[in-house]
């Protein structure tokens, strides 16, 4: 870890383009189903969250979320989706993650990043759309890049109809 003053200095120099490149890289890993590499983007205390569609501002420790993954579980989620026995995603669906409206704000030892997303999913003749926005807490990695401490993907659909499920990673 870099010491605090250098971290602050580096964070204040981060450009939106750098953050966008990182988010595009994440999206690319997901669309290519390189999910173990996706999980490795997270810090050891990383979290991946999807609030309920009727309570986008909910608290995962009090409200029933769709996803409330700590680092171990998000790693297992990635591993599971690589298996033939993860039936909802075998054969893998085709997905396309679109990222836009990226905003970056330094906050203490991390960056608060928000962006809009649309994920298209296609499988067996069924096409589903998942629109929403994500909130990221990014920290600096040892190599100067970024790690995800927290990703909260907030869906804009108010029910999972007609999608039925979130068997992919948003």
């Amino acid at each position, binding site marked *: 870890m870099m010491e605090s003053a250098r971290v602050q200095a580096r964070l204040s120099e981060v450009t939106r383009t750098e953050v966008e490149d990182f988010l595009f890289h994440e999206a690319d890993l997901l669309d290519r189903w390189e999910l173990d590499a996706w999980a490795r983007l997270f810090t050891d205390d990383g979290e991946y969250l*999807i*609030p*309920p*569609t*009727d*309570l986008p501002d*909910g608290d*995962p*420790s*009090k*409200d*029933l*979320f*769709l*996803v*409330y993954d*700590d680092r*171990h*579980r998000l790693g*297992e*989620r990635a*591993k*599971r989706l690589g*298996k033939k*026995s*993860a*039936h*909802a*995603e075998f054969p893998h669906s085709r997905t396309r993650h679109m990222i836009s409206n990226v905003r970056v704000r330094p906050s203490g030892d991390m960056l608060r990043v928000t962006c809009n997303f649309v994920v298209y999913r296609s499988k067996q003749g*069924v096409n589903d759309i998942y629109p929403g926005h994500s909130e990221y807490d990014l920290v600096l990695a040892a190599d100067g890049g970024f790690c995800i401490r927290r990703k909260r993907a907030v869906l804009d659909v108010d*029910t*999972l*109809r*007609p*999608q*039925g*499920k*979130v*068997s992919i990673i948003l």
Partner: protein
Amino acid sequence: MNQQAGFDPISWAVVDDRARGVFRVHRRAFVDQQIFELERERIFSRCWLYAGHVSEVAQPGQFVARPVAGRPLLINRDRHGRLHVFFNSCTHRGAMVCRENAGRARNFSCPYHGWTFADDGRLVQQPIPESYSPACNAAGELNLREVPRFDEFCGFIFVSFDAHAIDLADYLAEAGDYLRMASEHGAAGAGMEILGGTQTYCAKANWKLLQENSADGYHADTTHASYMDYIKAREGAVLNMYTAKGFGRVRNLGRGHAVSESIWGTPWGRPCARSMPSWGEDIKAELDGVFEQMAGRLGRERADFICHGDRNLLIFPNLVVNDVGALTVRTFYPSAPDYFEITAWALAPRGESQRLRDLRIRNYLEFLGPAGFATPDDQEMLELCQRGYQAHAGVEWNDLSRGMLDEDGDSPAKQDELQMRTFWRRWRDLLAGAEV
């Protein structure tokens, strides 16, 4: 009548040959439009249906609005504390008077012409009232309409659209005690509450497939193999599901209701109250304390059953209460033979510690829900079945014979299909015109 020549669900849809131990359901029952319409008329318009939980309308003024069996309902507690279940439809021209899913209101004002109803349903305001004859609402016929029947059982609110339905407690038969068990969780004995956050999703399949799936012990090792892998990765081993120190069985609870139940023999932990190695000593001590409190209140035998056991409870026709790694209330309704909508909530003891509440939600989501490690795969199986039924003219029958020759014995195995046969026998009888 919507009957075709020779249509008779008793004679063709279900083969129930107890002597030979053969039980079959015709796949047309999952795809046929006429059967779907008969189900609406003879099952969903007559049975008691889950509508909500008292914790959602605990305070005077609270309401929730949601469809039940396709009808928009408004459930509220009025300023005097009385529970109501209204049709959410203005008595003037029909618009829904309540457009929010939940909240607080002292009255409901129709957005179309401004008719306003008090929280007890009385029509209290019509714009330009002098143009109405006093006869228009002389008998209160323009007040918000209550559903024909509603009742509460251990906090679960049910409705029936049949004014002549038998009483709810009789309808629930032996399932009533299982619902009571689902209301007795927690150290404090302070009742139960529905958590914030609703899982509203759907499946492109026939609704009956979910009732079959929700207490199916036979599919766990294959459909949920990847969930078992996750447990193994976290805990180091998967507890043997059926031969551990407890027991497992399925039971017919009467009137189409059934349960799949066990003590100890499942591989997950329970926030009320059965620990897992990875939860650590502190959580184990707290859960053991919850058990002792419940044993003091309910007796050791019942507390052992509730805390250390698991129950997948099926209440005919469309309520599932899974009391497993968490406690979920799930109901569903079809809008077509090959599509239905599902709504699921988490139920939890009031006064639960924040640590256990957090654990409960994490534990719920490791298996359950449309982004869990198991539910999406269940949905996939339902949809694969539905696609398979497109070949029903070539492959006519589903087989649900498992364990049939022993089904009247003491303890049909948990992987048996008695619970499904119980559902289908009730379905067959109601479709044929039997009284609810």
